[in-house]
């Protein structure tokens, strides 16, 4: 994988050129295996952002060899991801891969995502796995697309690779206003005129726990109201920019 980067895995100041960022909240059951797999398949440093876990997530992550950034209280998966991105920006990291801590994201697909941004084909590679969505989830994705004017096949996927320009765009204060990594983040990237490619990846069923967003109908309803309102409010105006995202599929 270091060869894929076409330059040393570390800069002269020993800071990494690329990192894997994993936000985690109470994922002690899977975090160790996820870190080990990420190391094996990416050959990049792995940073776990512990989002105020109350179990042994932090300890298991440290044992597995990851750097752990511990938040003093839970701020949500997107906030935790942004923590990792801000740290990456601080160290001058050129590329970052974000993945979930629950074992859903197949680390063997990381090379496809990373290659897309390293080669310059896109600023952000969005890992898509449409088969993971149930009927109601796909309806939700469709509604998000209609409300935002963006056309993504899997807008809620957290499996992404991004370059330094995208990292910079996502570390601003405006991005801190977002609760989730889906439509709001994608709109922000589009507004920054960054190129986003959707790359088919493999995903596994969740190994433990359950989705925090699609857990109960009440939570889903609240999430959809907030997300659709945000999408409508931030929808791009046709006069200034085309409402359709100029995404490409590798």
């Amino acid at each position, binding site marked *: 994988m270091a060869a894929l980067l076409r330059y040393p895995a570390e800069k002269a100041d020993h800071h990494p050129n690329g990192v894997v960022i994993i936000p985690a909240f109470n994922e002690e059951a899977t975090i160790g295996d996820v870190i080990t797999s990420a190391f094996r398949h990416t050959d990049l440093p792995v940073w776990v952002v512990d989002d105020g876990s109350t179990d042994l997530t932090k300890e298991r992550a440290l044992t597995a060899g990851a750097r752990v*950034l511990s938040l*003093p209280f839970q*701020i949500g998966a997107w*906030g935790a991801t*942004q923590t990792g991105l*801000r740290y990456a920006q601080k160290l001058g990291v050129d590329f970052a891969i974000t993945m979930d801590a629950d074992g859903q994201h197949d680390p063997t697909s990381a090379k496809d995502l990373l290659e897309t941004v390293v080669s310059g084909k896109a600023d952000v590679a969005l890992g898509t796995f449409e088969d993971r969505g149930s009927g109601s989830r796909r309806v939700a994705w469709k509604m998000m697309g209609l409300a935002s004017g963006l056309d993504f096949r899997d807008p809620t996927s957290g499996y992404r690779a991004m370059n330094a320009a995208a990292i910079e765009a996502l570390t601003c204060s405006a991005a801190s206003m977002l609760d989730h990594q889906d439509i709001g983040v994608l709109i922000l990237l589009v507004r920054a005129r960054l190129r986003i490619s959707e790359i088919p990846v493999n995903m596994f069923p969740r190994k433990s726990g359950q989705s925090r967003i699609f857990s109960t109908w009440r939570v889903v309803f609240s999430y959809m109201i907030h997300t659709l309102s945000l999408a409508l409010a931030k929808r791009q105006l046709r006069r200034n920019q085309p409402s359709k995202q100029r995404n490409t599929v590798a």
Partner: protein
Amino acid sequence: MIQTVATLFGLSLSLVLLFLIRRDRLHISHGVTWGVAVLCFALLGFAPGLFDAIARELNIIYGPTLAISLAIAALVIKALLLDIECSKLRVKNQRLAQKLAMLESDIADHRNATKKATRPLG
């Protein structure tokens, strides 16, 4: 009667404001905003005819409706300003927590580096 009620309410509110500011429970900027509210109550208490006169100019038949409408509008604006302030604080709080996590990681690195540097030889 309404004049008496408004006057008493305005007086009570001004005393509460003074107490809160002196005890550092309320920031002076908010104290000034609420002070304006107290002045409005005082106006209602000492010059109730003023609202009636303005209402007549605006073709509002029932004068107190104007006072009530203005009060509701002021409360809505105040609530909105509070939400805006709350949003700003939320972002600041979140970014502060992120910065703390980053700094703690740097401190851990520094400690490890210091341990390695001071490890006895052999």
